[in-house]
Each structure stands twice: as C-alpha cells, then as structure tokens.
C-alpha cells in the first residue's frame, strides 16, 4: 500500500503549504457557484455580485439606492423626458486593451436586446411593461442618446439593476466567431481569469483600469483593483466556512448571524454588518377567511412585537422596521419609521370584534441558511398564540415554498424579498391583481395607482410624497407585515483592509487591500 506509506510524508508537507496564502491574493468564500459568465442572462445573486467586478454599465446604483453615472461621465434628460443623452468617460479601456467608444455602447445594447441573447431584462425595455426604448444612437465617439416612447422615472433605475448586469457595456470579443458567448470582456476593475465549475472563480487585477475620481459609492464611484488575484471559492457548508476563516484559508466570507456570534471573539477575525436591500416579513393571503378580514390581519400585526422578532432572529444584528423601503435607502424617512405598536390586548379585542373563532392559521417557512425565514416564523407563532391566534408553523423545502408563493396557495408565509433599489420597483414587487398574478400580495387599486404615478414622476419631492402615502396605506390595510430589512454580515481576516458590507448583499473587492 504505497499510498499509506506516503501519508506521514504528506502530513509534513501540509505543515508548510496549508494556511500560507500569497500576499497578493485574497480568498473569498461564496455559498454556491455562479450560473454563467454572461451578465443578466443566466444569473442569480451570486452571479450578479461576481459580474459587477468584471463589467460596468453607463449608470449604476449608489449606496443609498439612488442612480449615479459609471461609464457615463454625465447624462442629461430632454425637457419632454423622452431623450437621455449620455456623455461617455474618455480613455476607458476594455480588458483586451481597446478603448471604449459610443459604438461599443450601441453594439452592446443591440446584443442585449436581441431576443436570441435571452437577456432577462428585454421585457423591461421593449414596451412589454410601460417602458419602451425606441432608439439608441451614437451621436459621436463619446455621446450616446437613448430615446423612450414615453417619459419614465424608472428608466435609469432599470439601467442600473445588477440583475440586468447593469446593461453592461462589453467588447465584441466577448463572443466567438459564431456570435455565441465566450467570456465577459468588460471595463470592470477585475478580469475573469478562470472559472472552475463548482470550485472557484479566479479574477485578476485589470492594471489599465481608470477609476472615477469620486469616492467609492455602491456600484459606482472610484474603484481601484488593489489586489492581484481574487480567488472566490464555492463552499456550500457554513461550518466549513467558519473553520476556513479561523484557519486563515479564507480571507472574506458572508456569514450567518449564528456563525457571527460564534466568531465574535475569534482572534484575527473582524465582523461587520450593514442593513441591505432584502426585506423580511410575513405575507398574508388576503382573499380567504379568516385573513380576508382586515381586522384579523391587523390583530396579527399588533400581536407581533417587531423589535423582538427582528433582534431574536438575527442575534441582535438587524434593525426592526415595518417599512417596505429598507432603512439604508434614500427613500426611508420619518413616515417609514411609523409602523405597528405591539399591543396583544388590542389584538384580542380586534379578534373578538371580527368574530375570530380559533381557526388555524398556517405559517409556511423554510430553513435555508441564508434567510431567517424559520426563526421569524417560530417567534411570530408563539407571539400570535399568546394573543389567542391559533398559529402553527409548517416548514417546507424552498422550491416547494416558492411554488406555493407563486400560486398564492398559503395563509401566511415567512418570506424574504430580493433587493430592489427604486421604491416603485419595491412596491411593484408586492402589489398587483391577484387574479392575473397570484404571487402578488397586495391587491388594491389605490396602491396600483400610486405606483403608476411613482414610475412616471421624476421630481424627488413628489416621489417621496407618493412613497409615504404607499407606506401609510400598506400599514393600514396590512396585506403583509414587514419586520426588518436583511443584514449583510461579513467576517474577514484582519490582514484585509478597506472591506465593508453594504446595501447590496454581495462583497465588493475593489478598494480592498491586504496588509502583510
């Protein structure tokens, strides 16, 4: 048994090779592999997060969810609100060394809008929804105009969406001679070096990256690739991630609240948190008794102590809020701070008034490690029971729960909404006609009117007034109960400098460096 004989020897080699990471390499843990290298086509949250290192669009999201210029130096909107003129930054290079021009912007746009590309956001720009881009023209080398069929306040917000790949400006070299996708040749601070399916993604520094001058802000602003090699390892098991952090094999990892508590006192590891754009809450099916009665729904809301749920299901790291607009958003203000007052006595009275007769109410939850669904449901269950509501939790696998969500077959559901940066998009997620779209939770004509107005209004003050009215109406009707925004929790080794979790869930590795 030759191999047996080598083991002691190998153990000795292990002494020197394990744990010693290169000085110019950062190792980041990710819970699942990316789906493809084509931004906005076959993607999920992880894919978007990696792609935003490699490609950039004309605009992008800032830290507070507002839109800022990225590859555009600046932009202006015509008086009729239909024509957007983008002035491109000069001297921006693609990863293959070529300089970006307006032609590339137009070429990329046409490539994305081609139905054969199967870009997920085609229907957001081709008039299937309210927004239609009728013309995209390169006026000169550094100017691009985009014309809309009718004005829309959501145009830039859609252009900046990470799930659309921020409408990436890419070089034609991204495709092979048959026009099929090869790899992203973009303008981002890091280049894609290698993708080992289900193992790792290797990014390398793009040495010719020219940064914007403003400070780093969300997905825009100044970006500097300070690290030679970014190694993103696919590690599905959270316990392995924790061990890897402690052993020094991993430098940066998004972790759960429970693991954060375990690592709090570990030496050499820092932990930071930031409220992100996810929203955790309890959805209510409003078209079946007993929850079709607004008094019963309000009673549920009053029976739940938002603060206790938020803190209890996040190891005290989340910020309680009944708002659909996340706390770190620019649209979160005084009005959004108002919510439900915890009052089990009032809940009991409302229930009696509504004639609630101890009918069972099922709360569906799942146990994915990424979301607090199960903890929220369990805490809510006991609070509801304490107020005389016959609540019981039913745990399901995620695919099954998602199926119930999409078909509307549930009474209550502990659910986490994915991030939206613009308030019109946030409310659009939850609002709609249940007969057309059974997944929609809030079926109210007034709310739909307000959202429609919100997507047409450009003026910030007027938009805020609409967002405030939507919040008040939502609290009043209680079609669902938001409890707290998601928390990005990141653990990183103390040799990592400049890293910070933020509103977006995915780690950003530009402007991050490694000290010796």
């Amino acid at each position, binding site marked *: *048994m030759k*191999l*047996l004989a*080598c*083991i002691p020897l*190998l*153990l000795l*080699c*292990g*002494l020197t*090779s*394990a*744990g010693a990471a290169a000085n110019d390499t950062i190792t980041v*843990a990710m819970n*699942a*592999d990316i*789906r*493809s290298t084509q931004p906005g086509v*076959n993607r*999920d949250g992880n894919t978007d997060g990696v792609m935003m290192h490699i490609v950039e669009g004309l605009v992008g999201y800032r830290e507070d969810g507002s839109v800022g210029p990225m590859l555009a130096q600046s932009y202006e909107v015509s008086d009729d609100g239909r024509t957007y003129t983008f002035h491109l930054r000069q001297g921006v290079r693609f990863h293959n060394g070529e300089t970006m021009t307006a032609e590339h912007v137009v070429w990329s746009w046409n490539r994305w809008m081609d139905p054969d590309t*199967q870009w*997920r956001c085609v*229907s957001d720009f081709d008039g*299937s929804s309210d927004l239609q881009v009728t013309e995209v023209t390169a006026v000169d080398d550094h100017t691009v105009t985009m014309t809309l069929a009718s004005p829309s306040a959501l145009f830039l917000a859609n252009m900046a969406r990470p*799930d659309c790949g921020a409408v990436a400006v890419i070089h034609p070299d991204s495709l092979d001679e048959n026009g099929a996708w090869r790899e992203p040749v973009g303008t981002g601070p890091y280049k894609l070096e290698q993708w080992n*399916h*289900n*193992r*790792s993604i290797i990014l390398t520094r793009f040495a010719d990256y020219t940064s914007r001058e403003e400070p780093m802000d969300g997905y825009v602003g100044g970006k500097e690739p300070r690290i030679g090699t970014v190694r993103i*390892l*696919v*590690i*599905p*098991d959270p*316990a*392995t*991630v924790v*061990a*890897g952090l*402690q*052993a020094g*094999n*991993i430098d940066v990892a998004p972790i759960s609240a429970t693991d954060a508590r375990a690592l709090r006192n570990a030496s050499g590891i820092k932990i930071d948190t930031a409220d992100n754009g996810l929203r955790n809450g309890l959805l209510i099916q409003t078209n079946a008794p007993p929850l079709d009665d607004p008094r019963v729904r309000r009673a549920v809301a009053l029976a739940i102590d938002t603060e206790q749920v938020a803190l209890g299901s996040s190891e005290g790291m989340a910020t309680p809020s009944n708002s659909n607009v996340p706390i770190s958003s620019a649209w979160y203000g005084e009005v959004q701070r108002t919510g439900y007052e915890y009052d089990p006595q009032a809940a009991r009275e409302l229930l009696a008034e509504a004639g609630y007769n101890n009918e069972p109410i099922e709360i569906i939850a799942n146990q994915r490690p990424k979301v607090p669904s199960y903890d929220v449901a369990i805490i809510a269950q006991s609070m509801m029971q304490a107020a005389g509501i016959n609540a019981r939790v039913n745990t399901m*696998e*995620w*695919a*099954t729960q*998602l*199926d*119930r*969500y*999409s078909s509307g077959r549930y009474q209550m559901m502990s*659910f986490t*909404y*994915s991030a939206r940066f613009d308030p019109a998009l946030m409310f659009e*997620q939850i609002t709609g006609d249940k007969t*057309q*779209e059974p*997944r929609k939770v809030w079926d109210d004509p007034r709310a739909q009117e307000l959202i429609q107005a919100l997507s047409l209004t450009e003026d910030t003050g007027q938009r805020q007034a609409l967002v405030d009215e939507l919040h008040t109406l939502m609290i009043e009707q209680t079609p669902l109960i938001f409890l707290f925004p998601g928390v990005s929790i990141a653990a990183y080794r103390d040799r990592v400098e400049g890293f910070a979790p933020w509103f977006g869930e995915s780690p950003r590795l530009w402007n991050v460096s490694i000290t010796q």
Partner: protein
Amino acid sequence: MFLHLVRRIGSSIPTLILVSVLIFLLIRLVPGDPAQLLLGDLATEQSLARVRQQMGLDLSYPQQYLIWISQVLQGDFGHSIQTGQAIAPMIIQRFGVTLSIVLVAIVIASLIAIPIGMIAAWKQNSRLDVGLVTLATLLLSIPSFWMGLLLLLLFGLQLGWLPVVGYVSLREDFHTGLLYLIMPIITLVLVESGTLVRMMRSSTLEVLRLDYISHARAKGVGEAMVLARHAFPNAFGPTLTLMGIMLGNLLSGIAVVETVFTLPGLGRLLVDGIYARDYPVVQGCMLFIASLYIVVNIGIDAIHPLFDPRVKDA
C-alpha cells in the same frame, strides 16, 4: 462464466428502463419548478413561460421523456438547466473525484477492518474483543458529517496540517491534490471500518465453531494458519457482499462528506441538482448511479466464487 455475465447484463436492461421512467416521473412529481427557482421572486407569468419553453418544459411528459431517452441512447445526457454544461462529461468528472476517495478508503478500511474483525472473533469475549467491538460500534454510530467536522477542527484548525477548504484535482497537481483527499479518506475509513469489523467478526465466529476448524486444530495446524488458510476464505463471503453494497452506496455519492470538505463529487452534483430541480442533471445522475449498482453487483458476484466455490453451483 462468460455466458452468465452476458445474461446478467441483459437482464439489467429492463431494470434500467424502469428506473429511467421512475426517475423521470418522481422528480417531476416533487413540487417546485426549475423555471421558478431560476427566476425567484422576480418571476412574471411571461418570463416563466419563456424560461419553461427554453427548458422544453412546456411539452407533455411523454414527449419530454421520449426526447430525453432518445438522447440518452445516443450517449447525450443533455445540458444542465442551471449552468448549461453538458451533463455526461460533468458526471464523469465528478465521479472521478468520488471514485478516487471511495476506492482508496474502501481498500484501507478493509485492510484494517478484516484482520481486526478476525482477531476479535478469535479472542472472543476477551478484553481485547470487548475493546475492539466497542470501538467499532462507536465508529459506526458516528455520522460522517460529525466525524468530518471533528477531523477538520483537529487537523485543519488546531494543528494546521491540512488545508480546510478548496480542492485541487490529482491530475492538476498530484502532491497538493493528495493533501485535499486525506481528511475525506480518513473520515470514510473510520466510519466504514466499524461496520466491516462487526461483519467480519460475526462471520468468523460462525466459521470457527464448525467441525473442520476443530479438525484442523486437532491435526496440529498452527492458530495463524487456521485463521488465514481455513477460516478466512469461508468467513470473507458475507463481508465481500457487504463491501459490494457499501461500494455501491459510496460511489453513488458521499454527498455529506463532499459537502463538509468542499469536494466537487457526484453526491454534491446530485443534491444540488435536486434542490435546484435541475431535471436533466438529476435524471442523468440517477441513471448513472443505477447502472453503477448493477455493474458493482455483477463484479462482486463474479469474484465471489474465488472465495466460496459453492456459489458457482447456485
């Protein structure tokens, strides 16, 4: 013998057809839909319809099955819904990882467990026997993920001898690759040898009671010879069958061990496929695993007569 093998392989074809139909239906009967999982809470009716059409899920079940099975017969297992990769090469690559760990682990485990089992039986009811049986029972009761985590904490974290995360294939870098395989192999060896020790001990006990052993001893044959020459061949049969089952089980994926040690093996491919409702991947993996069981069983049956000539007559 040859004819026997051909007959065995021929009789496995109906099994495979039945398996393919069952897998195809079962994965579709599970609630949840790959298009929905792909789009998440962003899904609209139009986008769902579009993605389902791209995936070929808008066709009827018989149509989908016929398309799939005709592709499989041409050696094409289709493409993953999640990543678009071709499935056949993916299964082979992932199976390679699992195979390298499982084979080494089974060989080491049997080299350790078989002598120990025989010694325990030989010294039945002694302190040594009790000690060995206790240890074996302890090992087979520890779940593999727990054992894996303990090793990870000890060798990876406390002692820092072995890397905790990542994987390098043996083909890329043999030396480094081996480092990543040590802990998964030790985990499997520890967990599996418990079962083997118990099995070997009980079958040796049965054999040692038989008249021909007393006869051999009466002839004056030494104890070592009695065990090795007379007891072992007869006692090994049941353990060999068990090893066959074990091999089939382990080769079809050691998903838990693969997850703990971040190994891109067959088990993780299947489990990830199930969670994502990646129908083609699940179907491909399951068909491969079913064939694997058949091959392993035929193989074990073929070598069985070497140890127990009585089997040949049956």
